[in-house]
Structure formats: structure tokens, C-alpha cells
């Protein structure tokens, strides 16, 4: 009996297998550390993190659609909401909100008050310019691309840079006509 409409993020999160957030956080920390050592340049690290996120995003979407019976969201507005309310919850156990819609509804912000990635993190002067959570933007971008929405994502606010929250600006570049090559093969 498939529940009608998308299930709530909390419901899903309650049912999925979970791990200690600290393992997650520290592992992510270790990754960032490695990147900083390997790539040396902060810009490169940002790129690599985004790439990693993208890789995750394009794989994660299947699970997302499967677990939350989100009937594929057609319009961008709806999609953004789903990501914020369900997506973040079911994977990171935190909820995000969507704000700052622009007039033509192609650009909005996903705001994270609470972000397991950055527990303990403080950027030293040597790492200024590092978008520590850049992997998130990659994930969102990748996932959206799988539902055929090309987006451009930029950090508006970053707690590690002293802001009061994390704000991802998601800008819809173009929406490729609906087609789900990735939906079937599972």
C-alpha cells in the first residue's frame, strides 16, 4: 500500500538505518583534511568537494525518489521544497527551509540552521576561502540534474564565515524536458 503523496522527512528518517553523526562528521573532516594536504590550493579543494557532492547527488536521487514516494516534482518550486523538507531530513536528519524566491521562481535559497558537517569546525586563516560544506552544493546540483534541472548553486551564507546560518542559493539554469533514463534501471 503505497502512501499517497510524499512521506514526511521525519517519517523516512525514522525508518532508515542511521549512524552516529560524529563518525560522519569526522570522516568528512578527514576527507577535507586530505584534500587540503593533497591539493594545497583552497580553490581546488572547493572544486573537488563539489565534484564529490555531484557524484553523490546523481546516485542519491534514486534512493531519494524510491524512499520518499515523491511523485516526480515537475516545477522547480516544488522540487526545492522537497529537497529542503524531505531530502536533507532523510539523509542528514536536519531540516532546511526554502526562502528568497525571486520573481520568476527560478532562484531560491535553501537555508540550513543546523548542519552536521560543520560540528567542531573552525576555519584557520590558512583556509579562508574554503567552502567547507561545498559537498552539499554538489549533491543538490547532481540530484537536480538527475531530475533534469540544470542548476547553478552558490553559497550566500556560511556559518564558518561568521554568518548565522548556511544558505545555498539554487538558481535554475534550464529545465530539460521530462525524461527519466535513470528511473528504470533499478
Amino acid at each position: 500500500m503505497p502512501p499517497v503523496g510524499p512521506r514526511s522527512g521525519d517519517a523516512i528518517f525514522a525508518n532508515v538505518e542511521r549512524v552516529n553523526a560524529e563518525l560522519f562528521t569526522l570522516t568528512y573532516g578527514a576527507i577535507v583534511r586530505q584534500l587540503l594536504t593533497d591539493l594545497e590550493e583552497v580553490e581546488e579543494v572547493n572544486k573537488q568537494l563539489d565534484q564529490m557532492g555531484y557524484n553523490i547527488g546523481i546516485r542519491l536521487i534514486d534512493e531519494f525518489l524510491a524512499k520518499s514516494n515523491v511523485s516526480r516534482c515537475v516545477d522547480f518550486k516544488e522540487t526545492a521544497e522537497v529537497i529542503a523538507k524531505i531530502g536533507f531530513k532523510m539523509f542528514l536528519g536536519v531540516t532546511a527551509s526554502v526562502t528568497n524566491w525571486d520573481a520568476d521562481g527560478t532562484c531560491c535559497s535553501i537555508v540550513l540552521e543546523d548542519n552536521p558537517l560543520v560540528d567542531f569546525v573552525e576555519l584557520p586563516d590558512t583556509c579562508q576561502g574554503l567552502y567547507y560544506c561545498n559537498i552539499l552544493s554538489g549533491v543538490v546540483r547532481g540530484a537536480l540534474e538527475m531530475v533534469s534541472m540544470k542548476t547553478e548553486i552558490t553559497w550566500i551564507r556560511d556559518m564558518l564565515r561568521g554568518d548565522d546560518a548556511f544558505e545555498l542559493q539554487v538558481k535554475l539554469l534550464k529545465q530539460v524536458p521530462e525524461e527519466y533514463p535513470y528511473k528504470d534501471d533499478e
Partner: protein
Amino acid sequence: MIGVGKMKQYSNVLDRPLSKGKQEVSLSAFAFLFSELVQYNQTQVDNIAELERRLEDAGYAVGARVLELLCHRDKGNRRETRLLGILSFVHSTVWKVLFGKVADSLEKGTEHEDEYMISEKELLVNRFISIPKDMGTFNCGAFVAGIVRGVLDGAGFPAVVTAHFVPVEGQQRPRTTILIKFAEEVLRREARLG
């Protein structure tokens, strides 16, 4: 804008209380992250040994921190000064916190005095990773081995820690054994402390 950041007190990690470690994320989130860790490191190496070393380094960074955190939070600022103490700390406390369960088993190596083994039927990091044939003996457990080494080394018990697949009869998936070989200085000290 960075300057501004410094002004904001709440933004500073030192002002936030240490987390109670009750927070959780979905396993798949970790799975995705971990597989990226592995894949990234694959691009940085040209052989399995190197890859395992890098994973171990990543793990070490986690272990060293976990030790400090857990001793403070879960053991009320007691240090482990004895070999068995630290081993059980790894086997139970660390495992419980990180993997949500005590490790399946902790045994002393039969042939060597300085060897100990922590075994896990299904190591968390190996649950969602299937090793391609061409990567032979590669074991993602190297990451966990790194964590263990991080804890031990941090606590002053330097050791060589390695992860191995050990086939179990009656099951097609082998279990993973974390092999710990302590440095001789550790054993010497143990002897001195009696």
C-alpha cells in the same frame, strides 16, 4: 566578511558545548560519503597498498580525535594506561559510539604475544562496498584500522594495525579482522608497570 565572522561569538566552535554524540545521520549518507572517500583516494594512488595507506591515514585522523572525545565524555576524564584497558576501550566504547554496537570479538593472537585481533562479521564500511575483482585483497576496513591505530597511537600504544578479510565457513561474505601488532616499547612498558 571574515572579520565579521570573528566578531560573532556564537559562530565560534569553542563556545559551543561539546555534542552529546546522540545525533545521527542516515547510513546511506555515510555510505555515499565513504565511497567518495575511497574513490577520491583511488585517483591519488597507483597501487592497493598505497590506497589502503591513505584510507588508514584518513581513519587515523578520526581515531586520534575520537580517543580524546570519548575519554572526556564517556569515561569521565580517565586515561587508559594499560594495554588491555585501551583494547577493551576500542572494542567496546569506541565501537559502540562509532558503529552503534560493540565489536563482535576481541582476541589475543595465538602465536605472537604482541598481536590482538578485533573481528567484525560485517564491518560497517564494508557493508555497502563491493570490492571489484581487480582490486584483489583491498579492504575498506583499512579506514577502521586507521581509526583503531589513531586511538592506540594517541593513547601511547603505538601499533601496526591492518584489516583483513577472513573467510567464514557457511557464509559467502568473509568477516573482517582488524589485526593489531603493538610496538615493542609498549610491551616493555607493560612489563615495567607489572
